[in-house]
């Protein structure tokens, strides 16, 4: 799996996926660089899970190239993949330690190493006394912790997490984020699907926003913020705010307004326009659009519950 460091670890070009007469993903292209944390964002049904399944060979793509380390993925060359799917589950009637050891062996560890690693991990996630219990005797959150352990037990080079914090309480969410941080520090490349935008802003180096199977935005978070009018001006004032090609008033009260800047325009030019139009500006502060704002802006018209 050794490749030149400059080459992206994940390379997707012109990916298309049809299910019968329905096109789920069309002409999708993006790369994930080695060592980065990549946010894969989109509303439900936008094609995220389909893309991941095609990348991992679970689905055969209708067209395009989906490579990991320069070749299509197969379990035989996927020793260092960690995948936490959206549909969670392990062998429920088996004991925690048996299931973890089994997956460890499938991922190339010896039985002894897999068992030893599993016990250490269970200590870390406060489940050392649950090792010999059947999985269906554990709570949902505890089962998720075990599944995350199975995902990372082979020291993955690429970690694909499909909604990793779904079903976790805030305490365990923090624990999970710490574990992901540790994996990043160990050099793992992380592809993360999530609807928690604060997690994306905290963890991700770059993101892609998928809408109806197409890339709506792609790049670093500041790039995406720029693409969606990146800057917002908060204004307290007296007078009448004029229309302008440089901004769009997303909120306009009697003495307070929020103006979304269109394109890359110097804030000073906007201030000059307002003053020239006779607006008495009492305060003028600029801030960047949050990913949450952008998400609502992109998907708000779909009238759909996020995270369902």
């Amino acid at each position: 799996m050794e490749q030149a460091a400059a080459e992206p670890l994940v390379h997707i070009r012109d990916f298309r996926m049809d299910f019968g007469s329905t096109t789920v993903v069309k002409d999708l292209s993006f790369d994930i660089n080695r060592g980065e944390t990549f946010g894969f964002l989109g509303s439900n049904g936008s094609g995220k899970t389909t893309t991941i399944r095609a990348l991992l060979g679970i689905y055969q793509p209708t067209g395009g190239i989906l490579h990991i380390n320069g070749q299509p993925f197969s379990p035989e060359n996927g020793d260092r993949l960690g995948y936490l799917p959206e549909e969670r589950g392990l062998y429920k009637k088996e004991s925690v330690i048996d299931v973890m050891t089994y997956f460890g062996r499938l991922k190339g560890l010896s039985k002894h190493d897999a068992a030893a690693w599993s016990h250490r991990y269970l200590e870390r996630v406060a489940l050392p006394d649950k090792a010999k219990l059947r999985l269906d005797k554990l709570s949902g959150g505890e089962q998720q912790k075990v599944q995350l352990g199975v995902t990372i037990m082979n020291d993955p080079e690429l970690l694909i997490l499909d909604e990793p914090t779904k079903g976790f309480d805030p305490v365990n969410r923090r624990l999970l984020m710490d574990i992901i941080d540790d994996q990043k520090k160990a050099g793992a490349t992380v592809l993360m699907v999530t609807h928690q935008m604060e997690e994306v802003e905290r963890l991700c180096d770059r993101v892609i926003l998928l809408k109806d199977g197409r890339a709506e935005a792609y790049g670093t978070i500041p790039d995406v913020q720029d693409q969606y009018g990146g800057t917002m001006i908060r204004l307290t004032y007296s007078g009448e705010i004029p229309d302008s090609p440089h901004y769009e008033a997303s909120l306009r009260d009697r003495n307070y307004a929020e103006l979304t800047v269109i394109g890359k325009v110097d804030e000073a030019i906007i201030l000059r326009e307002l003053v020239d139009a006779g607006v008495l500006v009492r305060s003028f502060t600029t801030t960047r659009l949050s990913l949450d704002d952008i998400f609502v802006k992109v998907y708000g018209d779909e009238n759909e519950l996020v995270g369902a």
Partner: protein
Amino acid sequence: MARHNLGTVVSFEVTRNLTKRRFWISTLIVPVIFGIVIALVVLSNTATDKSVNSQKNAKLTFSYSDASGYIDPALVASFGGTLAADPKAAIAAVKSGALDAYFAYPADPTTQTTRVYGVDEGIFQNGKYSSVATALLVASAEAKIGDAKLSTLAQGAAPVVSTTYKDGVEAGGIGGVIPPLLFLAIFYIVILLLGNQMLTSTLEEKEDRVSEMILTTLNPTTLVVGKVVSLFIVGIVQMIVFTLPIIIGYVFFRTALNLPEFDLSSLDINPWQMVVGALLLAGGFTLFTGTLVAVGAIMPTAKEAGQVFGIMMALIFVPFYAVSLVVSDPHAFIVQLFTYFPYSAPVTAMLRNGFGSLSPLEATIVIVEQFALGIIVLRLAVRLFRYGSIEYSKKVSLKTAFARS
């Protein structure tokens, strides 16, 4: 790094099957019941032998009347009996308990019923009256014949051995039929014991939502083959557990169980038939396993998959409805149809192979058909598992499964 996960899958699947309490309860229930039956039969037979012996040796006070003239009065006297002067008085004596029994032999004991009257001594003891009455009749007949060998021959107890020839070569007879039919017995046992497990073997991944984890960790072919191999191993363990009490019963309690001694030297083992039988068994196993796994891969739950199991079982029993035709007229249309229809072929062909009516050409065609279809269906099963197992709660149509491929 190449991984050899087949052993890991087999080890995991076999271990978790053999460590399940449910497996041992369902496996041991048969031999335990069999053991209990053996014990009851041994106890019963021992008690019966004792009873028969005691009844034969019992000194009864009895009288008799003989319209046939066969009964030897001296013999009756040695048994302690006397000739009844008046049958009605004899019956009255029995009723009052003054006499243990009264036997009324008819003019023709071979077609008419011998009447036995006795004092009731309970259901198990009352048999002694008819035992003594019968013993008197047999001993009197033997005395009239006057020759022990003639007497034995009269009872039809003469050993006869038949030798038949087919195409100028000595035919095996029933001793030649039994060995190749053992493969048929094994086929039935394996399919009946393991069929349902085969059907549900890949359902667990779907029901437990573990399919995606597995598919990205393991080649589905390895998983399916691993499951089939482990099921076969589990089946062998079950067969050993099932047959052990039978072997123990035969070896150590044959006499007590009144089991006939089985002379293995009478078996005629034809190498060609044995090879054909073994190949038909392997081919049929491959086809049925592949089919059951494929069906399981597209079903969402064990309950729904179970409905298909009945149909599969019917297919292996259908040829038995025409078994007399299979034996007597192997070239009849229905027999030919059953011989070549893939799912009735293993049983029909194994039956015909046992009875020596399966030609080398027919055997070759059926064996090739079974293996070829079996491999195709197994590959289809892997494909259906790959693309159907992530449709967690839905029944997957072939069209849907192939739309994802």
